């Protein structure tokens, strides 16, 4: 086409597109997906609560309404402290931590212990059933209240370093 550029100039307007910067920000800040998921949960709680709105939430967190507005748009990089405070104010968990299920303890040669763990995804802690624990040596199951205590108990009895290393490598 002849003079295409010139004709474009005739109908152009001085407003500038920020698409390039906005797209770059969206593409590089992958955490925005997490922020959006948290925002969605906050909005769904507010939708069902007559006693709470964005202004009251701002008061409860001692932040500005503008900050809450940014949070519910899914565009705020929140600290763990903010997420915790939001959870408290909403009386609702906003994020759930995956729980390790310690499911097998193996005794190898020279009393080396290995622990196989399995990550249970998308299950709230309340749904994780306690696993049967293998009896080993003088291990007393009744003393163990959590997987962490269980490991601590094992470590105190045999081959501490091996256990620690196995936990580090996640094997």
């Amino acid at each position, binding site marked *: *086409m*002849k003079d*295409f*550029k*010139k*004709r*474009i*100039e*005739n*109908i*152009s*307007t001085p*407003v*500038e*597109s*920020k*698409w*390039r910067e*906005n*797209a770059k920000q*969206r*593409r590089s800040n992958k955490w*925005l*997906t997490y922020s*959006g*998921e948290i*925002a*969605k949960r906050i*909005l*769904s709680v507010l*939708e069902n609560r007559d006693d709470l709105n964005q202004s009251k939430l701002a008061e409860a967190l001692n932040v500005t309404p503008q900050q809450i*507005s940014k949070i*519910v*748009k*899914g*565009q705020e990089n929140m600290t763990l402290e903010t997420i915790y405070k939001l959870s408290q104010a909403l009386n609702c968990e906003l994020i759930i931590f995956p729980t390790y299920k310690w499911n097998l303890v193996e005794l190898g040669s020279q009393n080396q212990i290995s622990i196989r763990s399995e990550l249970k995804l998308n299950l709230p802690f309340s749904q994780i059933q306690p696993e049967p624990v293998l009896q080993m040596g003088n291990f007393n199951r009744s003393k163990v209240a959590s997987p962490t205590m269980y490991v601590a108990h094992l470590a105190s009895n045999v081959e501490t370093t091996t256990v620690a290393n196995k936990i580090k490598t996640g094997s």
Partner: protein
Amino acid sequence: MGIVPIFVDDNTGEGLYSFVYDGNLEPEYDRIMNLWSNVQYVSEYFLNNLKYLKDPFFDGQSLDSLISLIYPEVLELDDMFQDYNEAGFGQFAKTLQQIFRPLFDDDYRLSIYQSAKTSVQRGRIKLLRIYAIRMGPNAYVITGGSIKLTKKMQDHPDSNKELEKLEFVRRYLKSNNFLIEDDLKDIL
């Protein structure tokens, strides 16, 4: 009111443009992408349109999962245009008419001032639509966009409004004598 470049070839002027409507401070393309990136806007949009979500098109998806489908589509649209932009406007590069297709599915011919649309390439449910007017094989001006809630655009007030916007921009280009008879053979 007028058009602004999104990304264009400095030499020829071909490329992607966005329309800016009177009273708007940002180009239409920026406006819709920012809206679709706003979880509060998207959530409220679906909540205000619950009756449309019963359509089999939505495959019984929950409100929660539909809201979560939008942002990944925004990122994919960003990627699609960014990839095109980075590929440049060389002789062997893709043209924009490989990204945009005629608005109406039974419209098999490309024509001047033709209404066009694009969406993400993958995914079982594609919810976002971007609308544009074809100014040439490698020149389109974005007129708007919508979250697709009905099969026919006329069946929802927002997508119906997008049809009006397409017509408005088409008339604007014509009234400004953007294309002349001699261009036709180059465009088709």
